[in-house]
């Protein structure tokens, strides 16, 4: 019997082999599609284009999910360590990152409507549940570019991430980005310029930022998406979300159809 084919045997195995081959092909195709999608989300965009009016890629307000986020990097700032001098040290480290990213252009709504679990509000990261931490980690740390208008810009006071430095060069700039010119802050996105980044951009001043806001010039903001759980009480009043672009790494202003870096404006 060994090595002999029974009559009809090839016929009965043929359909099974065909089905296995089809299944393998489908699995292979699915794997290829997943790999393509993943590489698309992680592929650098070489920065936003320099012509104004480019259409954001996040269609329908969807926020792109980047599976592997760049690791933050830091530079010492006047003796203040990246974890600051107290409070939520993990949050402070996110605020004090200084690395540039390959920014993904997203619609204003995609950030403003991005949800968060309310159970993280007013809590240090170390006390978040693992489910909450995972939900935030899906989006936090994504390098984004968002377009809008500046409603206002204010210099903050001493804070833990900046080691409570009393001087101007230790203070954040708290800026409100709105979707349309002239909008109030109710649905704004808070964006923050931090001391370590500001130190490389002497032209970033609250005076210039306010002027840009008054002139209703469209801006393009690039930086890191971060959730600040400390101010949920402001939502619906002076901000639309506790998701922030923090720190801001680049600011460009639309002028005559071109995007001009704020560093080059006077």
């Amino acid at each position: 019997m060994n090595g002999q084919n029974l009559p009809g045997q090839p016929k009965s195995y043929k359909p099974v082999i065909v089905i296995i081959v089809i299944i393998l092909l489908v699995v292979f195709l699915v794997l290829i599609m997943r790999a393509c999608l993943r590489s698309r989300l992680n592929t650098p965009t070489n920065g936003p284009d320099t012509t104004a009016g480019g259409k954001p890629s996040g269609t329908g307000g969807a926020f792109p999910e980047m599976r592997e986020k760049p690791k933050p990097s830091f530079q010492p700032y006047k003796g203040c360590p990246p974890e600051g001098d107290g409070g939520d040290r993990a949050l402070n480290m996110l605020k004090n990152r200084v690395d540039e990213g390959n920014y993904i252009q997203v619609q204003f709504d995609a950030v403003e409507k991005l949800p968060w679990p309310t159970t993280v509000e007013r809590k240090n990261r170390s006390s978040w549940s693992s489910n909450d931490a995972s939900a935030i980690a899906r989006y936090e740390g994504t390098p984004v570019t968002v377009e809008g208008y500046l409603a206002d810009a204010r210099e903050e006071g001493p804070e833990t991430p900046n080691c409570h430095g009393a001087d101007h060069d230790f203070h954040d700039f708290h800026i409100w980005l709105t979707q349309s010119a002239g909008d109030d802050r109710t649905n704004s996105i808070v964006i923050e310029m931090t001391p370590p980044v500001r130190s490389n951009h002497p032209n970033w001043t609250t005076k210039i930022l306010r002027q840009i806001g008054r002139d209703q010039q469209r801006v393009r903001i690039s930086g890191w998406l971060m959730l600040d759980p400390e101010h949920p009480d402001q939502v619906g009043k002076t901000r639309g979300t506790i998701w922030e672009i923090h720190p801001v790494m680049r600011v460009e202003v639309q002028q005559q159809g071109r995007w001009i870096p704020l560093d080059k404006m006077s």
Partner: protein
Amino acid sequence: MRKAIQLKVILWIEGEDEPAHDFAASTTQAVKEIVEAGSAKHPELKVTVKKITEQSG
């Protein structure tokens, strides 16, 4: 008549400290002690520090 009042006081405190040292913790403790020491000047008032929180942006 016995009266009571709840006051919110905003203090601005400056001082020299090591960059990474927890300034909020040390100043919070200092303010408690300052209030306690100052309340001795007014024995007719019973002063209780109920809460001290840092005001942040």
